């Protein structure tokens, strides 16, 4: 019920997203009709193909047409790979999702303890180090971090595998269940593949994690400072509760709320950085798909990608809202 109500509030936003995406891609340069017509086509043939593709109709008609196809999950066909965009996006989604989730876990695993440590001793060297390190992380262009990591760990040290996507060329993907190689390989009991997949994931995930450390560490620090300075912590201290209980059960659980809210921004960062990171690591996910399509002015994938990313983001925000509700009884009861 709560889910439905939240979904309803997201509807106008989704509508806005669809309209914006449509307008954006209708304005994309490049004429698919010319491409489809082939190198030796006459202008008449190009017109014919344009008519067949429906590009000669008025904008509102095209929009209705677009909506109709969208309702059937049809996002058009990619020129470069010749496949339906929807299929390709869906087959590539797990690759991006696995990467982003691992990056998120990595980022949280580093940023949250860092933020807590900084909040425990504001103004201390730990605090300053936390601030400088995270700020440096968010200042590094992800594509540069990625290149740097590849250069050092693959070209120079040879400890990382080639930046060639999800698995070594001679490894075959584990039987598909979730589409996440880490999970699928474990399900299949194939530890070799698990290790290989993890090896491929480490560098791109680290690249993304470095970029998203800052917002998480900062909000953790601020929220922890806020929580630690709040009156109920004073009460807890006055009640003689043990320090770890005060920090983790009392302060941290309250501080987690703003951290969850910030995840929205972190996801925005990630979905954007994803494009650049995937390009650097030849990751067969959504981002590299979009970049390749963009370079080729292949507009259907770009449109599909932007739309999918926006929908994904709306969905993630929805999930964040729901998780927030699970943690915070106040929200839960209001809804």
């Amino acid at each position, binding site marked *: 019920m709560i889910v439905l109500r939240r979904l309803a509030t997201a509807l106008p936003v989704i509508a806005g997203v669809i309209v914006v995406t449509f307008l954006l891609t209708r304005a994309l340069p490049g004429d698919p009709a010319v491409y489809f017509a082939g190198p030796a086509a006459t202008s008449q043939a190009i017109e014919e193909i344009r008519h067949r593709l429906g590009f000669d109709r008025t904008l509102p008609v095209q929009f209705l047409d677009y909506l109709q196809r969208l309702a059937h999950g049809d996002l058009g066909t990619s020129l470069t790979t010749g496949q339906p965009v929807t299929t390709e996006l869906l087959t590539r989604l797990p690759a991006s999702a696995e990467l982003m989730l691992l990056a998120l876990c990595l980022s949280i695993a580093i940023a949250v303890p860092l933020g807590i440590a900084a909040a425990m001793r504001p103004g201390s060297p730990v605090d300053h180090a936390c601030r400088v390190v995270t700020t440096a992380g968010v*200042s590094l262009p992800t594509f540069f971090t990625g290149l740097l990591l590849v250069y050092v760990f693959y070209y120079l040290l040879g400890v990382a595998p080639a930046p060639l996507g999800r698995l070594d060329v001679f490894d075959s993907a584990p039987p598909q269940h979730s589409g996440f190689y880490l999970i699928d390989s474990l399900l299949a009991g194939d530890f070799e593949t698990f290790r290989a997949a993890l090896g491929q994931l480490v560098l791109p995930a680290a690249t993304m994690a470095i970029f998203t450390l800052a917002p998480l560490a900062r909000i953790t620090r601020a929220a922890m400072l806020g929580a630690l300075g709040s009156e109920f912590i004073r009460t807890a201290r006055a009640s003689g509760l043990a320090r770890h209980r005060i920090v983790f059960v009392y302060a941290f659980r309250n501080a987690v709320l703003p951290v969850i809210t910030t995840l929205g921004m972190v996801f925005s960062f990630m979905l*954007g950085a994803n494009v650049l990171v995937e390009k650097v690591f030849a990751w067969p996910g959504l981002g590299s798909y979009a970049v390749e399509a963009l370079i080729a002015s292949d507009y259907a994938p770009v449109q599909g990608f932007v739309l999918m*990313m926006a929908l994904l983001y709306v969905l993630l925000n929805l999930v964040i809202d729901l998780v927030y509700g699970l943690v915070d009884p106040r929200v839960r009861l209001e809804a």
Partner: protein
Amino acid sequence: MTATLRHAGYVVRENPVTAFAFALFFLFALCAALGPVLAPYDPFASDTAEALTGPSAAHWFGTDQLGRDILSRIVVATRLDLGIAVTSVALAFGFGTLAGLGAGYYGGWIDGIVGRGVDTIMAFPLFVLAMGIVAALGNNVANIVYATAIINLPIYARLARAEANVRRSAGFVEAARLCGNSEARIVLGQLLPNIMPLMMVQVSLTLGYAILNAAGLSFIGLGVRPPTAEWGIMVAEGASFIVSGEWWVAFFPGIVLMAAVFCFNLMGDGLRDIVDPQRRT
């Protein structure tokens, strides 16, 4: 005013990092202002005999594929990179703040429209939206500026809206209203100056993000035209040389790019300490 200055002095003294950021900022500002004068070589002059030489006394940061001096190109690129960032943030600031003030002060349908627009922009992962906009509008600097402005707009609109909403019925606004000031005058003359300090903090932070964004766009090929020097595109060009060991082509522009963003972020933090000592985020 002197109190603010004294407080600023205290913050800078207390926090050497902020002082460092301000110093770095002046260095970048200098490069932006005097770029071509400071550059040791003509940033566009090719010298194929000297192509792809590593850092040396003659070329501190080495040369690129066409033998152009990388240091000179980096120095000259400062104006463009900062220019893109400053212009786009100025646009975002201007339009975002006005829209936000309007929405917060008047409420009603203005608030509705602004809110819906902002929500829609925020529904996109920002970099992806910027990508889409530049791809759609065309591959040039002006469109990078617009795209960066659009994705930064919601931050200002939301901030301004929230502040205006809170202050709408504050004493000084009521007083101005009783004095017979027009509504627009109240918004611009009373509300705007009051929210300026907070906004300035945001400006510094978004400047850093704007630089990153523009560089990211040029990295994927949505950028400025060759042979223009721009940090992002220089990293992209250098990326292909890393494998053959010519690391300097990508490394130096990347490091400078990072330093610039770093500088703005630290400065934003410093400004926040000055403007809003309570919120220690």
